[in-house]
């Protein structure tokens, strides 16, 4: 009995904006299921009262003065653009 259903695989792929082939759906369902099955061992650990750790460092809110600084030129920023026009990235319409 696989841990993930096919529907769940499709839903995850949609959230991640990945289009999977039929073969990929089958493969990932099996592989992700076995990995997740393995990962459930962390459920055994007693973590009552244990704070989550997101980062190894004691720093937070590292700020700098709100001053204008040089950044990338428009030309550099567009240098790898798949499509550019009028100094902007050209993309498909979002709204009709």
């Amino acid at each position, binding site marked *: 009995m696989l841990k*993930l259903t096919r529907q*769940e*695989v499709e839903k*995850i*792929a949609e*959230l*991640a*904006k*990945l*289009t*999977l082939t039929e073969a*990929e759906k089958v*493969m*990932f369902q099996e*592989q*992700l299921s*076995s*990995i*997740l099955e*393995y*990962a*459930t*061992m*962390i*459920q055994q*650990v007693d*973590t009552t009262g*244990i*704070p*989550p*750790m*997101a*980062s*190894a*460092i004691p*720093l937070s809110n*590292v700020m*700098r003065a709100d001053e204008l600084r040089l950044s*990338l030129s428009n030309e*550099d*920023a567009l*240098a*790898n*653009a*798949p*499509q550019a026009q009028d100094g902007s*990235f050209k*993309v*498909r*319409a*979002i709204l009709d």
Partner: protein
Amino acid sequence: MELYSLTIHAAQEMLRQGEISSVELTESVLARIEAVEGQTQAYISLQPELALSMARLADERRATGEDNALLGIPLGIKDAIITQGVPTTAGSKILENFVPPFDATVIGKLRQAGAVFVGKTNTDEFTMGSSTEYSAFKRTRNPWDLNRVPGGSSGGSAAATAADEALATLGTDTGGSIRQPASLCGVVGLKPTYGRVSRYGLIAHGSSLDQIGPLTKDVEDAAIMLSYLAGQDPLDATTLPAPVPDYVMEMKQAPDLKGLKVGVPQEYFVGGLEANVEATIRAAIKQLEILGAEIIEVSLPNTKYGIPVYYMVSTAEVSANLSRFDGVRYGLRVDGGDMWNTYHQSREAGLGPEVKRRIMLGTYALSAGYYDAYYLKAQQVRTLLRRDFERAFEQVDVMVSPVSPTIAFEIGAKADDPLQMYLSDVFTVSLNLVGMCGISVPCGLADGMPVGLQIVGPALGESTILRAAYCYEQSTMWHQQKPQGLTVS
């Protein structure tokens, strides 16, 4: 003695004395690449003309009286680190034609020091993998046995350093990706404390885990490289404000290891560790004792949870970090008719199976209904892992262990079994989760293949682990051994 086989410190001595020029040194390395690269496939791209112009510039700078440890030294750079004007692919089709418009901070520092860049080394795609087999472009081979993997994800860097295709290389380590290939290829690999080296310009894998570090021919070279790489960076808010010590001087401060307390974590010597690897590691630990260290058995009780925690935390971070690859501002775009389909098609075409696997795992771990059971739970267990290490470091100064449970495996042996691949990271992932430092140093051969000894230290403990590694190395001959797998006419 061929120039390409020199260490950084030996080459620098000859450069200082005027015995060789950086151009000669670089030409030697480029000729070596020509001779063996067909066998190792360590590089994704090479920039010989650029390298020679950097070498000429270094010689000119030296002529004006400039002198520093990296001036004129030819290095390879892992292709996950961006280099202005030089294609950077992260081992992925989605960035196949990407040319960065700016340098990573570490690249700027190395340029300022006058180093020479010969090429970009191969990596598993987006540094996800333990064998470099997931690179979208080529498979790198272990110079000790071309039928075996070099390890990963910094397999290209490890192979290049081992095969003298650079005097040293830069790699990155998120779950062991410097230490493991270093171990498998018989070179030194150092993962700094999280926050010691800037991640600005490192194509992100796991932002709370990634670090850039050196792969070198000996420990002194690692100390030299670290002294240039380390330091706070205003462009990376996760870098530590701690001053950078003189690592080379601190490394050499004592002739032996008297007074050093070395912990051996009992959980690292059970199940899955190959007998020949264990025997080699035990012999190395014995050697540390002979050098005067006090060997103390310690316990890291939550060790076995390291892998599942890592594969929840790192994949969650991956799912966020790789969402920028959408065909909009850079990288591969496959037009899908509308915005959403363009995202889908671009990512489908550009991202490889391991990357997709991890994005999906991470997306699942973070998704509604599963966040608490997987991601949050993993973060809590991460705290327990950290406390294990902190508790151990109250009793000892460093801890030692194997890096990899096996010697380098054969190409293809694990590529179809992702879980098996993940399990081989058991000795390395915890260190990234807890953010502390570690080094892999060659400690022998098992069945003719290199074995690395991992020495780990507390946060900002680089001087201590370098000292231990250096003392050990200098009492053995392992760092002088060269790979046996290459054919050179």
